[in-house]
């Protein structure tokens, strides 16, 4: 409630805004300095076009033109090679700060992007079963000082939606609203639970990013740098999610995927550079809703498939290896005769990574993040 007769000085004095923000801005020493970033690849990224199984005798035959990029690509091990455009990731791999998982898939076994993304983000075993996101539920198992998350976009993606408050930020070219109007808006929203919550989040984020608007963010590198700036301050976010699109390469995959991977490589390079010494306490997860067909389609692309690849990057990762129980690409080994057969569960991989990173008991992480994947054990030894 507030007095119906207010002048500007009165509510500046009352400090409604400051009061609303005070608990959020209070700085408390965190128990750890861990940072976690989830980069979602929307549109079904082709795992075999990113981490190619060049040692599989069926690879070149199945992939035709798409195999050509890997002819001279540096090998990761006896079986796999990384797409040659990803030089930053190659460097991380050499320093044992990049781990690739292959033939990995969420529990979803159909081929709708939107259902698949729903499963990937909600952490259910089928679409629309779970209403909130696993990244939001992660906040519930972290100490309160670490449970701060932000979406590097104007709105909040499903993985971050849920009962724990999260923020969102993307650079704006609109002129900043005047402080006076902002305070009147804050007052007006006091009686509206939804808008009051959103506004408080927006204000606390704005405090941290006041000089970011000029940065642009029009490309992947800028987005990576922006995310790093949101994560770097001691009182900033500890968890961030970045959305990337453009992975649905039904046509001309060779050029399009190359450009995508160059962007992703640049984004991760910028994250690392921006986080500086914090990189050693950072884990970046890159994952997609499902993979693409083993065979090239009639239009130089690939269609919706099943198994794909995922990545863990950062100083906290036990990297320099490819984690794969490789199913093989010969026709008889394919899922439904067309897709890479999944041999590793993405939910178990994510739970294991997060548990190791934040020092949470793996079974507890699995139960909180993927409550419906009963009987599945989190992958250990990732950190």
């Amino acid at each position, binding site marked *: 409630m507030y007095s*119906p*007769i207010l*002048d500007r000085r009165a509510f500046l004095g009352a400090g409604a805004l400051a009061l609303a923000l005070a608990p959020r801005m209070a700085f408390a020493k965190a128990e750890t300095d861990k940072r976690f970033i989830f980069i979602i690849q*929307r*549109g079904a990224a082709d795992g075999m076009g990113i981490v190619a199984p060049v040692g599989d005798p069926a690879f070149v035959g199945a992939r035709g033109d798409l195999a050509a990029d890997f002819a001279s690509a540096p090998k990761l091990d006896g079986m796999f090679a990384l797409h040659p455009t990803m030089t930053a990731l190659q460097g991380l791999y050499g320093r044992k700060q990049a781990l690739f998982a292959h033939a990995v898939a969420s529990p979803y076994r*159909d081929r*709708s*992007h*939107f*259902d698949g993304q729903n499963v990937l983000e909600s952490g259910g075993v089928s*679409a629309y079963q779970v209403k909130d996101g696993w990244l939001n539920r992660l906040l519930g198992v972290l100490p309160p000082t670490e449970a701060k998350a932000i979406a590097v*976009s*104007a*709105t*909040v993606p*499903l993985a971050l939606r849920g009962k724990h408050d999260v*923020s*969102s*930020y*993307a650079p*704006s070219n*609109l002129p900043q*609203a005047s402080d*006076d*109007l*902002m305070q*009147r*808006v804050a007052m*007006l929203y006091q*009686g*509206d639970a*939804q*808008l009051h919550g*959103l*506004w*408080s989040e*927006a204000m606390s*984020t704005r405090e941290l990013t006041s000089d970011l608007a000029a940065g642009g*963010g029009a*490309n*992947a590198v*800028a987005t990576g740098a922006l995310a790093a700036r949101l994560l770097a301050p001691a009182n900033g976010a500890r968890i961030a999610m970045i959305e*990337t*699109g*453009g992975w649905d390469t039904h*046509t*001309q995959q060779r*050029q*399009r995927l190359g*450009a*995508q991977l160059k*962007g992703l490589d*640049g*984004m991760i390079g910028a994250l690392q550079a921006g986080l500086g010494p914090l990189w050693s306490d950072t884990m970046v997860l890159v994952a997609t809703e499902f993979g693409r067909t083993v065979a090239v*389609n*009639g*239009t*130089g*692309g690939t*269609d919706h498939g099943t198994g794909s690849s995922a990545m863990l990057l950062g100083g906290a990762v036990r990297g320099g290896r490819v984690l794969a129980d490789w199913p093989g690409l010969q026709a008889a080994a394919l899922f439904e005769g067309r897709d890479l057969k999944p041999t590793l569960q993405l939910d178990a991989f994510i739970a294991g990574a997060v548990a190791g990173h934040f020092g949470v008991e793996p079974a507890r992480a699995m139960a909180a993040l993927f409550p419906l994947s009963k009987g599945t054990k989190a992958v250990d030894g990732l950190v």
Partner: protein
Amino acid sequence: MTKASIALNRFGLGARGDQPIPADPVAWLNGQFAHYDPRPDAIASAPTSAAVSADLADYFRQQRALRAQQGGKPGVPPGPPAAVAPMPGSAPAGLQMGAQSVQPPGMAPSPPAAKPMPDDAMKQARQFAARTGRGDYAGAVGARVTQALITDTPFVERLVHFWANHFAVSADKLQVVGLAGTLEFEAIRPHVLGSFHDMLMAVEQHPAMLLYLDQAVSVGPNSPLGQRIAARAAGNGGRKVGLNENLAREILELHTLGVRTGYSQADVTEFARAMTGWTVAGIGQGPGARAAGTDGLPGDFVFAAPLHEPGDRMVMGKTYPAGGVEQASAVLADVAVSPATASHIATKLARHFAGDTPPPAMVARLQAAFVKSGGDLPSVYRALIASPEAWVEQPLKFKTPWEWTISSMRALNVKTADPQAMVGLLNQLGQPTWKPGQPIGYDDIAGSWAGPDAVLRRVEAAERFASRAAAVDARALGPKILPGAVTPATSTALANCESPAQALALLLVAPEFMRR
């Protein structure tokens, strides 16, 4: 909200400050069907798909000429219709060019001191085409905004926007940027008060859809062309061509039946085979482009028999006999009136008007109206208007950025808009027009739009709107645009503002104006 406020804001596009409040809200809505104009001046002056396609065809012709001049030098990518911005940062090669001058398409590359090497010329042509596409795109966005601002039938205009998002294309690919708006103008607007079947056919044969979901490059493996290419590929290890199931899948999943309604991967593939041959004249790419023939003008829908997979097709248990264009048309005609389609459409309409969680009774009523009328859309809309669930007093929907922007401008009596500025504003607010990035279109739930940063940007935009608006007293405007729905808290806040412009800005972001 009062009935009048609901009709104006939830069903319409927001009240105009200079128009009377409807005395009989239900009659006002039903009456719009008789007055709707599918091709009003604002829309008629926007670029057509024929004009956009002619420019694209010129561009492709020039690319071919340049390639020929180059003598097929290896290592040069064959002028892909690259994504304009598939993700932040992965800009197409053409954007690296900097400040060099640009050659218009159709003009021979300056012959004598041919300084720009063909590589450069090709890049320049690509840039030019991208820029032309962006100009066409902005022109179409401007036309859509203008029509939304001045229309006398805002409920029907809202339905046009609803269907354009249902049949979403995304202005990401070079070929689609300029065509995206023309799908709404040419395939949605003429059929918004017609039958769902006719709208579906018009959409699936529109060049924007055929190109966006890759139908135009799909080749039947056993079609005459598919066989010829396969024989050649077997001889020299050349490129294979074949089926692309993208459009067939999204028709079933997104446009008609809905996901998980009983069709299988085999049905998708069979439907994709039936659709082979459905393509676009003049602006297709790949080996099928020549087979599209020279019958039509660029951008015309054509059925290219040499691409069509021969044989009967079995889709969801029904056999569709071998044939030409009518084989896929018959599948579409069946799915257009399927109860699953009716349920899918009913659910989405109910969500749009009665809240993020659609009331089951209302969905059942709309579905019944759809089935009973064979997909006659006005019958469904009348059932919608008659549904009490859509007249609940408390606001049911958080406005999307588009809805908020249009309703704000209407409230301020704005009647024209600079197209480029509108493109920029809608980008900033988080909902670039015809650019959802995915064929499922934009979400229609609050969770997607009610983000902290999204709200902050509306406040920024509101202040800018208000600073440019004519001197209007927000205290008087409020009851006109939200009749009977302005809360005492908002009235008080408006009365205490330090300037008329500040009060206007505050009205535009008041809780009752952020929702409908």
